[in-house]
Every structure is written in structure tokens, then in C-alpha cells.
């Protein structure tokens, strides 16, 4: 085998580098299409759509250079409601289409909108490979822990024991933790946010869009019809004790007075919940999303309840730099042209061994 030394990449770790911007000021309305939004009343998707439409003008990109790609499911209708380019594809395959588009078009800002069934069940294989390749896309994973569009079957993130139309005696499946899965798949940007917290959602979108590579954003999203209240513990009164906020460089504390905190065992890496008053602030775990070793982010992801969610870390678990698949693939084309020149079709077809018949 011949081994090829990869050139040292000189790449800007800026998710939007190469995407043309506009001087014309944009507003939320510029990103609303003429299509009537058809989600159920009270669906968490409305809040996410409003947040995205409100956030996109901030990027200052030309609308025609933004593409939203979705698969199948309630969330997959998302592209129809944005006045950008959009592609509503087939179940689970959006990451594949986004990969081909991102590799061939560095001038586009490519977004994937997917759900827990779309991304983690039928499309699980594509999701993990897109993440490990680190294709420059932002993936919004709407997790409502249920199948909505097919009317209420359990999903790969539903808690064990979930009673649904297809599991009248309760589901016997162990659910995925999407954050743990993404980290295991070598993702470079992994975050979680909540549909109803527009400020936090927007701040995570901002970081995700700025990240060069695959950004996975899990959005806890309420389905008022088939799984209403799945995230209620993280909303309304008492949420301070349920949400563990992750902020890079900050000690991790939670509770209405910040009375709880996290401590990491230096030897085992295990993370415990401790009372700040008992141990003192200096012993608390300080969040480091930028560390190359994913084990801290993984340990944090395991603090998410697997059953009914009464506690979950929210924020950016991991944000590290790694060359992207699409940049490296394009660089090979550039390198080939630089070293051997533009291809000559006639010479290619002739090859080395020709003969002439007079």
C-alpha cells in the first residue's frame, strides 16, 4: 500500500466562509415563504421556525445561498416555510443529499432539518457517517421522543415502557441518547437546546452556524398531540433544578440558587452531582467544550434522564476544530490540478498504448 501524506490544511474554521453575504438589511419576513404553515396548533416546531426565521437575518447571507434539506416527518416540512432554497427529500436521507451538495458547493450554507425517527431510526447510518466525516452542515434534530406524522408510535428516543399505538403493553426498546451517539460518532459540534427557550436556542444556532464542520443541535421539541409535556420538567417552575446549563469555561452549577454543582472524579472521570455549599465552588467541574478528548462531553451527556426527563444538561457539549470532509475533498481536486495541470481529455482517452491503422 502506498500512503499519501495529506497536505497540512490551511482552512478557516468558519462555517460560513465562502458563502456570499449581502449588504441589504434583512428581516424575519424576508425568510418567510408564501406557504401556509401546517403544523398542529401548539407544536414546538412553530417556536423553532420563528427562532430560525428571526436568527437568519443576523448571518447577513444572501438568501439564495442558503439551503435547507429535510427528510420525512413533521419537522421535515420546515424547508417549505423558509424563503430560501429547500429540498424536502425522503426518509432519513437528508444528510446524504446535504453531503453531495456541500462537497460541490462551498458557496452555500447547508442546513439539515430532521427528527428523532428520521435521524436516529431510518437515517441513523447516514447521520453517524455525516458526523464522522465532518461535512460542513448544520443539523437540527427535532427530538419529540415520538412519531408524530405517522400518528403516535414510539421512536428511538422514547423511554422504555412507553405505551403507544404500536406498544400497548409498553415499549421494550432502550432509547438512544442523541448526544452520546453523536459524540461516539466523532462529531465536532454537539449541542442541546429547548424549543421554548428562544434566547438559548438562538445562541446555540449562532454557534452552530459559525462552526465549520457538522454541527448537531438536538432540540427538545414538544408534540402536543402524541407526547405532550415530555419536556415539562425543563420548562416553567422548577426548571432551574432540572436544566444543567453548560457554558464553556464556567463552573457547572444548577438549581434556583445555583446550589447544585457537578464534580468530576479525577481518577475515574465519573461525574457526580454535589451540593455547592458542602464542597465549595473551587471543587466544581469547569465545562470545557473545546477539549479534544470527548470523554468529558460524553460523561456530561450521560446525566440526561433516559426515562421521563426530569433532568438534562443543555448547551454546547463539544465544539472542536477538525478539517471538514468537503474542504479536504475539494483540496484534493485543487492539488491534482496544481500538480498535474487541468485534465486533457484527448490524452486521457488515448492512454499509453495506441496503434494506428492507415
Amino acid at each position, binding site marked *: 500500500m502506498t500512503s499519501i501524506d495529506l497536505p497540512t490544511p490551511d482552512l478557516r474554521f468558519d462555517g460560513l466562509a465562502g458563502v456570499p453575504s449581502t449588504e441589504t438589511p434583512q428581516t424575519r419576513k424576508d425568510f418567510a415563504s408564501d*406557504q401556509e404553515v401546517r403544523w398542529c396548533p401548539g407544536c414546538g416546531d412553530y417556536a423553532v421556525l420563528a427562532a430560525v426565521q428571526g436568527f437568519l437575518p443576523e448571518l447577513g447571507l444572501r*438568501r439564495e*445561498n442558503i439551503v435547507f434539506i429535510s427528510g420525512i416527518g413533521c419537522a421535515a416540512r420546515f424547508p417549505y416555510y423558509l424563503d430560501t432554497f429547500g429540498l424536502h427529500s*425522503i426518509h432519513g436521507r437528508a444528510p*446524504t443529499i*446535504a453531503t*453531495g451538495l456541500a462537497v460541490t458547493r462551498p458557496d452555500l450554507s447547508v442546513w439539515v432539518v430532521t427528527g428523532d425517527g428520521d435521524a436516529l431510526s431510518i437515517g441513523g447510518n447516514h447521520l453517524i457517517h455525516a458526523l464522522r466525516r465532518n461535512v460542513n452542515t448544520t443539523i437540527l434534530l427535532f427530538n419529540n421522543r415520538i412519531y408524530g406524522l405517522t400518528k403516535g408510535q414510539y421512536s428511538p428516543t422514547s423511554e422504555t415502557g412507553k405505551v403507544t399505538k404500536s406498544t400497548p403493553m409498553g415499549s421494550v426498546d432502550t432509547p438512544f441518547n442523541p448526544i452520546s451517539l453523536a459524540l461516539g460518532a466523532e462529531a465536532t459540534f454537539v449541542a442541546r437546546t429547548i424549543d421554548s427557550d428562544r434566547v438559548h436556542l438562538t445562541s446555540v444556532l449562532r454557534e452552530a452556524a459559525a462552526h465549520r464542520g457538522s454541527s448537531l443541535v438536538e432540540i427538545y421539541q414538544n408534540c402536543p398531540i402524541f407526547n405532550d409535556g415530555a419536556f415539562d420538567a425543563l420548562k416553567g417552575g422548577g426548571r432551574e433544578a432540572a436544566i444543567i446549563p453548560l457554558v464553556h469555561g464556567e463552573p457547572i452549577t444548577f438549581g434556583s440558587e445555583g446550589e447544585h454543582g457537578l464534580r468530576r472524579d479525577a481518577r475515574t472521570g465519573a461525574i457526580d452531582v454535589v451540593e455547592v455549599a458542602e464542597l465549595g465552588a473551587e471543587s466544581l467541574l469547569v465545562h470545557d467544550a473545546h477539549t479534544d478528548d470527548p470523554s468529558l462531553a460524553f460523561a456530561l451527556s450521560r446525566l440526561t434522564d433516559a426515562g421521563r426527563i426530569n433532568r438534562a444538561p443543555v448547551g454546547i457539549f463539544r465544539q472542536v476544530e477538525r478539517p471538514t470532509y468537503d474542504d479536504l475533498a*475539494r483540496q484534493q481536486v485543487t492539488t491534482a490540478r496544481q500538480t498535474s495541470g487541468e485534465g486533457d481529455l484527448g490524452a486521457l482517452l488515448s492512454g499509453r498504448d*495506441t496503434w494506428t*491503422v492507415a
Partner: protein
Amino acid sequence: MTKQVKQLDRVIIRFAGDSGDGMQLTGDRFTAETAAFGNDLSTLPDFPAEIRAPAGTLHGVSSFQVHFADHDILTPGDKPDVLVAMNPAALRANVADLEPGATVIVDSHDFSTRNLTRAGYADNPLEDDSLDNFAVHQVDLTALTVEAVKEFGLSRKDSARAKNMFALGLVSWMYGRPTESTVEFLQTRFASKTELRDANITAFRTGWNFGETTEAFAVSYEIKPAVMRPGRYRNITGNLALAYGIIAAGQRSGLSVFLGSYPITPASDILHELSKHKRFGVTTFQAEDEISGIGAALGASFGGALGVTTTSGPGVALKSETIGLAVMLELPLLICDIQRGGPSTGLPTKTEQSDLLQAMFGRNGEAPVPIIAPRSPSDCFDAALEAVRIAVTYRTPVMLLSDGYLGNGSEPWRLPEVTELPDIEPAFATAGSEPFLPYARDPETLARPWAVPGTAGLEHRIGGLEKADRTGDISYDPANHDLMVRTRQAKVDRIAASIGPLEVDDPGSEHGQRARILVLGWGSTYGPIGAAVRRARRDGISVAQAHLRHLNPFPSDLGEVLRRYDRVVVPEMNLGQLALLIRAKYLVDVVGYNKVRGLPFGAAELADVIQGVAAELPAREG
């Protein structure tokens, strides 16, 4: 010693050995020498799916057949004139294909009791009378090779491995092949391993000298160069020609090529080849699975690249849903299916034509897809260009049906002038003064605009849900759905207007006495059918031949052509898939001839079929 030189007009040689014996390489080299000499040629590699099957067993036998002549030939030949067998298993697996009088060159080294038993021989065929009908040359190729290369200090095993080059040298002498290209090849291949390089070159030259000096080989043969159309030629396999056709289509359309693919036999060579040509703006993506391969290709097409995916039948099954999406999105996409024996995993390294109905109908809903089939290895180049022309012009996925025989087989290719290759015009949409309508159509082709992201004013959303006519908005309207289903079908049907009438080779039509039998084929059966038709004509049978490049839509005049003949014979390497389509569309009661043995038809076999049909024809009326 003066040796006799005999003139021959054509020869079929089959090299056979263990899958580790290097028979494919030996065949490739002999082919290259033959091409350089200027004979017409056609090759048939045949190898097991196992990379290294247990040594000495029948199912581990790998072979390479080459047919070369001083005239235009169409097939790799039915029955070998010469069999080179490197062990008992190779002899036993191939001897039944020989006619009496054939030459057998056999490496006698490995005919031990153990190896004979492993190959299923109760008695040693070199010692009983079972080979009496053949001219048998027993040569201890292994021992001669080991002796010849001993100075290079290789292990016994490595020394013995050069025996394929000894055999190549011997056969090259027998048929007066030029040797320079093989020596150069070995110098390059083993440039970093000088002792292997020297051993292989020495084995090759010793094999040549052995032929020239030993009394066992009294005769050598001369096959004059073929009279071929003036031009520059090279030898090419179907998979290589297909890869070049894709690159050429990218160059002629100005589109960058994006290949999304997952390795699968016998298509992987196209992925390998295209990955070497990045300086032509070709990007290759080895995906996590077949679905991702085509998904990424479709994404690239959405972005304005030439999206291509390459696979075989099992991969097409996985890609079906995405092909349906491409039908709905009405975007250009090329899907190359290098067919192999099926169903399921089937016969990965053997050839078959059994994916025609899959290509035609293998999707949910009414999802018409144009289908193109090359008819010879070099024709894969032109077929790729034609498939891309249709995909780009009509904004549609196109299926190209090659097969394992075309993909791996080779023939001389008259090089085209690059400037004379067809132009392909992407005609991307631009913003006008009216609101953009993503599903408005060209009145002639019914193609919709190819509106790529990055074009201001063309922002739009498309998807797999049914589209409203013109606007492309989601529509559940019954009348609209009926209209759109019919429109997508009509668009594919209209391609027929761009493809010209079917070429029919009917020797009688010039003097008013048209043949009564037409042999109609598609894909890789072109060679065997053509050779069979020539034989039948030599035997006085008036028979016409036509071969379909376009399987969907058919040429507009196909029905009319079929009705001119009393009998239409359709040989296929499946159970009658084209026959089914023809009968359904034209109500013509064609005569099928169908075999699925994983091997191409023989010319003699098809000539017999034509004879049989001719014999049963009632006398001409009036």
C-alpha cells in the same frame, strides 16, 4: 532448427489456473501484445467471487479467454483452440469446452495424487486416454521457471509464482506476439522489487526461448493484423470506457462530475478509475452505503453538478427510493448498473441481463426512467455520453445498463476526436421579470428549469410530495396528480423524438427481398448475435439484425420494424424481459431464447437458434 510457421485467420486462447496464479494478469498482457500487433480482439475474463479460493479446487479456477483475428470479430469466441491449464483443477474445469483437435498446454508439475483428488480426478488425465482427442503439451512449467530464476535468490514459492510469465512467454512465441510492452510493464510494476522484476522478465523470456528451441513445439502461427477502419486505436474494457464517457460528458457539458458510490462487484472499477481523475474536476465520494451514494449524487445534481452513481443490481434495489425522488424532483442523474447474476447476491462475478425490468419498473408509483444500454466494451463510452445528454436535456434520472461481461471484457477502440463529441447544454435557469415557476416546462422537451442554489430570485422548495403544475407547490388535488403523472410519462416518451429510427441490418432489403427473420437484442448480446447472424447468412439464411440502445423509450419506429418480419427472435441472458416489454407494447409474438448461465451466449449456439427458427418458417406466401 527451422520451425514451421502456419497462417491462421483467428485463434481463441484460454489461460486457466488457480485464482492466485495470475491468470487475469497473464490474459491482460497477452491482450495488450495482441492489440499492439494490430489484430482485432475480444476478451472474456471469468473469475470466482472468492479472492483466494482454496488452492487447487474447481471453484478456485480463474480464467481469461482472448479471441484475436485478422478480421473484424464480435465475441471472445465459443470454444478455445488453445487451453493453458496451470493445474489439474484448471484442466478439469475447462476441458469440456474444447473441440477435438484443440491444443492443451498443461503444467505437469502439480499432477500429484493429492492435487488430482482435490480437482476431482480419480485417475491422472495425463496418463490415461481422456485427452487423446487433443494435442497435449505436458510441460513442467513450475520446475522450468524455478530453474530459470534461481540466480535471483527468491524463495521457492516466489520463484514458482513467475510461472505465469513463463507460460505467457511460451504462448507469445507460438503466436508471434511483440514482447516489448510486457517487458516494460514488468519493469514498471516491480520497479521497487528488482529481484521480482528480474525473475519475471527472465521467466517470460525463458518461456519464449523454450518455445523457439524445444522440439515439442514444432509450429508457430501467424495471424495477420486485421483490416480495420483507419484511425488511432487502443484496447479498452467496458468499465474503463464508461468512466471515460462520464469524464467526457462532464467536459462537454461544462459540469463538474460528482460520483457517489459504494463498492460492489462488478462496478467498483469505475469508482477506482474516476477517483484518479480529479484534475478533470471529478469528485468521488465513497459513501457509507448504496443509498448514501445516490443521495449525495442527487444532492450534487441539485447544486448544478453532474451527479452519477455506479452499482450493480443489489445496489439498484437499495437506490430505488432515491431514483423515485429524482423522478419527482426532475433533476439530471446518471445511474450505472453493471448487471451481474441475480437474484439477491446471486453470482457477483458472472454476467446477466436480468435487471431490465428492475430498471423499468422497480419503483413505487408511476416513475418512468429512461434506459440506455451499451452493446460492447468500447460502446460504453458513447452510451455514457448519450445517457448524460438525456439526463441533462430532459432533467431526469437515467439508467445505464451495462453488465459484467461488458465491464470486464475488452476490445480495440477507435479513438474519437474530442472536438467531435456531442455538446451537452445544461441551460441553467436565470431569473426573469416574472415570478419563478420551478415546474413550468419547455414546450418541446417538457423539461423543467434546472434552477440551482446561489441564483438570486429563484429561491424555491422542491420535494418528494406531489407538485402543483407550474408552481411546484405541494398539491393533493386529484386532477393535478393525474396531470403530473401523465406529464412525467410524456416527458420520457418524448425522448424518442430525439433518437432517430432503429438501424436494421437487413441484407435483403436492398434488392427488395427483405429477410423474414429479425434477431432483436439489447446490451452485451450484440457480439454473439452479430456473429451468429453472420454464420446463418453464410449458411444461406436470410436474417436481419437490430440492436436496441434505447430501452425506454423505444425508438418510435420499433413497432413498425417488428411487424415487417415473420419471426422476431429475442435472445436474452434472462427469462425474457425485453420480450415481455415488446409483447406488451406492440402485441408482437416474439420468440425468446433465454439462458442464465452467468456467461455470454456462444455464436454457434445462437446460429443454431436462427437455423431452427428458419427451418420452421412456413413457405413464403404468394
